[in-house]
């Protein structure tokens, strides 16, 4: 049981680290397009790692119900397909409405 505790703690820690980095990037980057780079990639992987850790914890703590890890696996797959699609949709809307991208040397917006 100690090995399982260490693996789950490592996965949860890595997931929370990537989520924190994505949120700091949302505050620090100077332009709308670069902020979407930070959140669209880091939030997907961070959430996926946290749910993976919870799935492994469930295997060893409640071994009689195996339906919940199947639902969590489908949730991970759904997040990996839905988050990049939503990012692309909102970036396309901003590009067609005429939001200008940021070059190096300008001021923050």
């Amino acid at each position, binding site marked *: 049981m100690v090995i399982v*505790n260490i693996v*789950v*703690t490592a996965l*949860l820690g890595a*997931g*929370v680290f990537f*989520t*924190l980095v*994505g*949120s*700091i990037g*949302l*505050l620090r980057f100077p332009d*709308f397009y670069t*902020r*979407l780079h930070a*959140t669209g990639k880091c*939030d*997907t992987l*961070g*959430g996926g790692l*946290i*749910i993976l850790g*919870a799935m492994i*914890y*469930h295997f060893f703590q*409640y071994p009689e*119900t195996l339906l*919940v890890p199947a*639902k*969590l696996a*489908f*949730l991970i797959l*759904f*997040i990996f397909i*839905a*988050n990049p*699609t*939503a990012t692309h*949709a*909102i970036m*396309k*809307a*901003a590009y*067609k*409405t005429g*939001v200008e991208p940021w070059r190096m040397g300008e001021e923050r*917006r």
Partner: protein
Amino acid sequence: MITIFWVTILLIAITMGLSLYRAVAGPGVFNRVAAVNIIGTKTIVLLVVMGYYFERPYFSDIALLYAMINFIGTLVFAKYLERGELWS
């Protein structure tokens, strides 16, 4: 193990607070839509971990439902901002 889940819940709530600043003060409407989408994604993760903290692992149904609602909401908003109307 339960205290590790409690620390995870606290850290995810702190990151949601950081994203809320961008939702309030972002110049223009696109920054706000992106921030609300990110808060929705973090809500799903928070629901799953809270289920294991309270020792009732059946909150994952609600998380699955809210993931779909959040995705459809962001797509509809982006389509409205691009065209100016929903049905053409």
